């Protein structure tokens, strides 16, 4: 009957309207006032002190207060090659996660990082970014997929008390490789401890430090980019670097007796006072304090000696933070807000910088560890003046680095198949340090062809 039909039509229309409203509100994500967007973010490395964890949670609380529609879940996170690959494949990475410079572009190119270009360009300080650093998080097609968390340059760490014990001036660290060799010999002879030590573990750190050495002599491991790059691992500067290591190891016997140091155990050995000098990132002081409780008075930081060559430079690296590719628009916006708040603001906003430094200093975390500017140098100097009252690291012991680094040319890591290039070099370094009769040239040629194959395969 007509009335029934009208009633039915009205009912169906009403149902459709409700349905449409429900569908549209969920599709629009969480723009509805009562809905909160939830994102998970990488927090601290597992095993961090309780004070550090508390400090992080305080920051999360502050962020949620200023952004009431965003809920942040923190997830302990440490980037290691196998666990990252597992989480990536399983889809269990937090919404915001960190990757090293070496991987960001490949991940972006493979669609494993979300495109956040539009959100980043809307940030007020976008123009102040150091273009070289921002480029590390930009794909070949120009999409920004990650924002820098921190950048570092390789540096020479030395033990001031061992220097003194060996009759060397701790305020005058070596500035040429010949001096490094001489100082290492003096330390070994006068103190019995290893004068100069280098990472030689098979987990790509051996190749990483060798590349650092080669860059400082003016060599390069690759020419060209992408899968068309050409591997040049066996260039004359690499041979020169390996021969220097050979001389220090076998002729001078100044490299100690352990040759399988990785990134964290070399820090541990140094903090324990058994190492005179070693090369690692300029930011490892934080790890020396948190993991090994180093006695600050023994720590000295110098710039890596560079050869007298136009191509000689310092290898730079860093960490970026990116967003999962399957995040929806609302989550991406929330994620970039978190990136802005947690990673970038403390470097560019006076209040945040001071608040950050204050809480870090209160929980006895290092403040003022030398890093490289993510924004331009003027901003970097400005930020340093803000946090000056809270600096608790021995800055005057790090002066040789802080003054020297800005005179040096910064060179990014090899672009194509970085980890595979390093891995190919691992065995060469280990061989030179463990076998007096290693045929350096032959091994380098083999390493070169291995690296070239990896580059061509895009792995």
């Amino acid at each position, binding site marked *: 009957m007509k009335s029934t039909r009208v009633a039915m039509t009205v009912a169906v229309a009403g149902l459709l309207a409700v349905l449409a409203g429900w569908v549209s509100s969920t599709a629009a994500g969480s723009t509805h006032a009562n809905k909160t967007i939830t994102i998970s973010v990488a927090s601290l490395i597992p095993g961090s002190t309780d004070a550090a964890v508390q400090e992080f949670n305080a920051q999360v609380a502050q962020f949620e207060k200023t952004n009431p529609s965003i809920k942040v879940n923190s997830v302990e996170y440490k980037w290691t090659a196998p666990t990252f690959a597992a989480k990536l*494949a399983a889809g269990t990475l937090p919404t915001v996660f960190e990757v090293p410079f070496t991987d960001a572009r490949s991940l972006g190119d493979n669609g494993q990082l979300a495109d956040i270009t539009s959100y980043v360009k809307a940030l007020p300080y976008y123009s102040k970014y150091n273009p070289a650093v921002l480029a590390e998080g930009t794909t070949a097609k120009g999409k920004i997929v990650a924002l820098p968390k921190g950048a570092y340059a390789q540096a020479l760490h030395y033990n001031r008390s061992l220097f003194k014990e060996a009759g060397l001036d701790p305020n005058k660290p070596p500035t040429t490789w010949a001096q490094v060799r001489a100082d290492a010999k003096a330390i070994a002879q006068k103190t019995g401890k290893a004068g100069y030590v280098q990472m030689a573990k098979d987990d790509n750190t051996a190749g990483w430090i060798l590349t650092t050495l080669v860059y400082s002599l003016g060599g390069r491991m690759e020419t060209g980019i992408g899968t068309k790059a050409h591997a040049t691992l066996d260039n004359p500067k690499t041979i020169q670097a390996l021969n220097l290591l050979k001389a220090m190891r076998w002729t001078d016997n100044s490299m100690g007796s352990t040759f399988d140091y990785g990134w964290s155990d070399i820090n541990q050995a140094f903090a324990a006072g058994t190492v005179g000098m070693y090369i690692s990132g300029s930011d490892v002081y934080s790890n020396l304090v948190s993991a090994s409780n180093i006695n600050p008075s023994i720590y000295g930081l110098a710039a890596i000696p560079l050869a007298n060559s136009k191509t000689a430079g310092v290898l730079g690296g860093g960490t970026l933070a990116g967003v999962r590719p399957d995040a929806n628009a609302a989550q991406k916006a929330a994620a970039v807000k978190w990136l802005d708040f947690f990673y970038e603001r403390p470097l560019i906003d006076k209040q945040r910088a001071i608040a950050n430094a204050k809480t870090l200093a209160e929980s006895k975390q290092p403040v003022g560890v030398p890093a490289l500017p993510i924004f331009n140098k003027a901003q970097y100097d400005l930020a340093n003046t803000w946090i000056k009252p809270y600096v608790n690291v021995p800055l005057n012991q790090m002066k040789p680095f802080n003054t020297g680094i800005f005179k040096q040319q910064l060179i990014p890591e090899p672009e194509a198949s970085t980890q595979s290039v390093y891995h190919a070099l691992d065995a060469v370094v280990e061989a030179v340090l463990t076998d007096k009769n290693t045929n350096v040239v032959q091994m380098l040629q083999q390493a070169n062809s291995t690296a070239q194959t990896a580059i061509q395969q895009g792995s």
Partner: protein
Amino acid sequence: MNDDDFGRGLISQSEWRRPSVRWGVGTTQALLLVALVVFGLGPILWLAKSSITPTIDTITNPMSFFPHGAAWSNLREAWTTVHVGRYFWNTVVLAFGSWGVQIVVATTGGFALSVLSPTYARVINALLLGTLFVPTVVLLVPLYIEIVRPPLIHHSFIDSYWAVWLPAGASAFNVVIVKRFFDNLPREIFEAARIDGAGPFRLFWSIVLPMSKPIVGVVSIFAVLASWKDFLWPLLVLTNPNEQPLSVRLPSIQSQTSLGVFLAAMFIACLVPIAGFLVFQRSFLRGSGLGGAVKG
């Protein structure tokens, strides 16, 4: 000990009467005992000693005996700061779950194959035997992919304890020895139960299981020990450090921990297996004598 003890084995009575043989064998056995103590017990005693020695002493003079006193704080620090207790608990939970899955699979499967014995039992036996001949490495990658991307369920099992518990049950060895045990149970008892009207479930729960205590004991010891020792699989599927067992966690904290505390953590990790061994010694040694001979 009299001369009658000899003459039954390698050394005959007449030989034992000769003093040169007595001395020779006695000395050899004494030397053997010394060697076993030094090599078998020595490293563990060193670990115990070093776990309460200050780090600096262990580094500079590892074979000294408390030159500057003991550092009991190592143990305390290992338990609290390094959170050995948490990883210890994880190991226990993982062992318990793996044990449970293995017992369920082995007893129900063994019961079905041995007592209920369907026509297709032969096929299943052949498939089980086949897996005994397949080296575990063959399973590693696809099992991992299966955990990461299960075929029907669209939810990864990475960081879930089920990823460790469930695959642990796929031990053909367990099923084989349980089935063999059931094969040797007297059939008259089953007949009697059947006449009394017991169905398969009653039979399993009230008759067979209570009689299986010995074999369940053997399987349990193997299961718990295997779980305690497991390294590669938990390393791959448990990426969250807070969920990892001791075997996975210990290597990764080495470089953040001073040597003394680290050795203390390792010592704590040994306590349960050693204590378990001392208590269940007989079962261990009997079980591995038999089982070890045929374990694939």
